[in-house]
């Protein structure tokens, strides 16, 4: 049976470090800020094929905005972005602690990724629709969604806007351009394309933006969405939030050993932008570029937002069990909040005193919202009427639901 051909070997990717190892990002090539060219958004896809392998960055190490992608934002906009990001972080920290105290069943933070939702929420219009992942609460923060409604949802209490039917943080907020979340990853990516196609079908001017984690690009949903977006030239922005970890699996398990996530666009004939996801200005510029493209009937863009999941996956895991300690601190693209703050300070538009005052204000706002939610009740202490369990299955409950509700005596 044996021949002279070499024995085949099964390749299993392994990350550069695990607990006990020195964290390193030496394997990554991070080009300096300002070096990626900015083609006109009307350029044909064939002229854009270098972009998926670059990294669009605007903020340099000194916090200056450099290069062709600088969106030249007003200081007010920058401060609004900083506020939304800082609010997200403050809220996350507080609610994560409340989970530890047993006040709810589950929580997920977006630590290190706050720039993405905050920025894109500001770039897109009120009539556009986001199809978010669970790490996108900063989208809502940038639109002043009431904090107490988030808290009530997280507590599944009597005031929960989703009537206790959904796991904490899987919000839905149509008025805020925020499509209903679900626990299964990836399965809304195609709906973003469908939403955008519907807008085109109706001759409207709305666009959609869809999100998927880098780990979830392995699902068929990702590839199906890209196919439809490409075929029908859908006015949609499709984003991969590459935070490099999918629970305990490094991005090599999703294919990052040999290519970039932005480069997945190439075979679908779509433009792919690879962007520093911790750089508020770079995200702004790239999103604006893709949005203009979509609004001018030039179709979809895939954007990879390169970032780092600074915290654990959720309240259910301990990242020190699978990542080298101190990896977050070594991440070369830093912290998005700190970088935007540094930029504002460098512009002379911000200082430590104002920052402390903002932090104090946001801490107080979160504290007040939590207090209000706790007054209604945390998980197990208050819940919507049990009737709500049977509502919303269909528009009108059928006989089964009516009989079952009666069986419970309600």
């Amino acid at each position, binding site marked *: 049976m044996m021949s002279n051909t070499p024995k085949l070997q099964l390749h299993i990717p392994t990350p550069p470090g695990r607990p006990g190892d020195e964290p390193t990002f030496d394997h990554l090539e991070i080009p300096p800020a300002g070096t990626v060219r900015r083609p006109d958004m009307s350029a044909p896809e064939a002229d854009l094929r270098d972009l998926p392998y670059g990294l669009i960055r605007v903020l340099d190490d000194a916090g200056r905005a450099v290069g062709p992608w600088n969106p030249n934002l007003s200081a007010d906009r920058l401060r609004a972005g900083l506020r939304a990001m800082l609010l997200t972080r403050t809220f996350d920290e507080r609610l994560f602690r409340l989970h530890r105290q047993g006040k709810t069943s589950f929580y997920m933070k977006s630590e290190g990724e706050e720039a993405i939702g905050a920025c894109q929420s500001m770039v897109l219009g009120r009539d556009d629709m986001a199809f978010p992942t669970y790490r996108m609460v900063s989208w809502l923060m940038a639109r002043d969604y009431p904090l107490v409604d988030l808290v009530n949802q997280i507590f599944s209490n009597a005031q929960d806007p989703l009537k*206790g039917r959904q*796991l904490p943080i899987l919000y839905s907020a149509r008025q805020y351009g925020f499509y209903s979340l679900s626990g299964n990853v990836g399965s809304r990516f195609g709906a973003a394309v469908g939403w955008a196609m519907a807008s085109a079908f109706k001759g409207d001017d709305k666009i959609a933006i869809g999100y998927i984690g880098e780990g979830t690009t392995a699902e*068929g949903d990702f590839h199906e969405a890209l196919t439809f977006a490409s075929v029908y030239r859908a006015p949609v922005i499709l984003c991969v939030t590459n935070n490099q970890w999918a629970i305990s699996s490094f991005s090599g398990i999703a*294919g990052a050993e040999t290519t970039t996530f932005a480069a997945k666009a190439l075979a679908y004939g779509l433009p792919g932008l690879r962007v520093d996801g911790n750089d508020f200005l770079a995200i702004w510029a790239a999103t604006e570029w893709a949005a203009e493209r979509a609004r001018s009937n030039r179709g979809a863009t895939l954007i990879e937002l390169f970032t780092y999941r600074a915290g654990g996956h959720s309240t259910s895991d301990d990242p020190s069990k699978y990542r080298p300690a101190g990896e977050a601190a070594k991440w070369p693209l830093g912290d998005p909040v700190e970088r935007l703050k540094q930029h504002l300070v460098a512009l002379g538009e911000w200082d430590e005193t104002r920052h402390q005052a903002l932090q104090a204000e946001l801490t107080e706002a979160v504290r007040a919202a939590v207090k209000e939610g706790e007054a209604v009740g945390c998980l197990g202490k208050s819940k919507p009427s049990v009737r709500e369990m049977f509502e919303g*299955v269909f528009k009108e409950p059928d006989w089964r639901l009516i009989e079952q509700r009666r069986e419970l005596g309600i």
Partner: protein
Amino acid sequence: MPTMNMIQALNSALDVMLTEDPDTLIFGEDVGYFGGVFRVTEGLQRKHGLTRCFDAPISEGGIVATAIGMGAYGLRPIVEIQFADYILPAYDQLVSEAARLRYRSNGEFFAPITVRAPYGGGIFGGQTHSQSPEAIFAHITGLKTVIPSNPYDAKGLLIAAIEDDDPVIFLEPKRIYNGPFDGRYDQLLKVWAGEPGAEVPEGRYTVPLGKAALVRKGADVTVIAYGTMVHVAQAGIAESGVDAELIDLRSIVPLDIETIVASVRKTGRCVILHEASRFGGFGGELSALIQERCFYHLKSPIERVAGWDTPYPHAFEWDYFPGPKRLAAALIRTLEA
């Protein structure tokens, strides 16, 4: 004999199989270095090597498709779907490929794969970490579906599933991974140590697929359950004071029809208990089979106690979960009927 919880028993089964059969391998989301989100594969990569237990991309369809190809080649892949709720992207692979490969190729190819998935509620996991999808597999001929209710059975059934030449869906009731749970959520948490079924041999043994366990003998009514509900049934029977016989199916396909029929012919009454929602649930099939085979022995209508026909709602965990009170009420009803 060592005491194990269900996680340790499953881990031991996998360890035994990786040791004894070089053609076995494990993959799935987070199962490699980390050992799985419920730690069932903990330590297996370290002990058996990278290619025997490794992480898979987040693609349930891909995981099952790949396992089928490996199985057809001659390996015995054991894959983990992180939650049974997430098995749906793999449903086409299971239904159209795994279940039919042997039939359509006249046995040239077959898929001796085992697909493990934690399932069921009672953990405040909300809509997508609580479901019980066994009926959608039972409906597909060519698939076997196994559900253990204690550590001893878990290990023996898993080894039997891995050694089986047909595709097996192995659903693990996650609520009883660490200890039995009888639905009385306001009581202290139990651990497996000291409970029946917690003594687990270290080495290889099997519990055959398709053999139900008679958990409790009784004269007046037969209760049929599987998974977590076996424990709920015990509490419900105790609460009702009814002299009920309790059958733990252990596998729903193959189904131990003889044990069921013998019991119902004896008792003349039957209550079926499952967590999955009621309409189109596996209880419907059981009820039809019993009616077909025991009609003249039945003294009252067969009852089904099940989850409501709604998605699994987060805030209403215990309103949804079919607990011992609902079973007790059904038992009393059947006796009075």
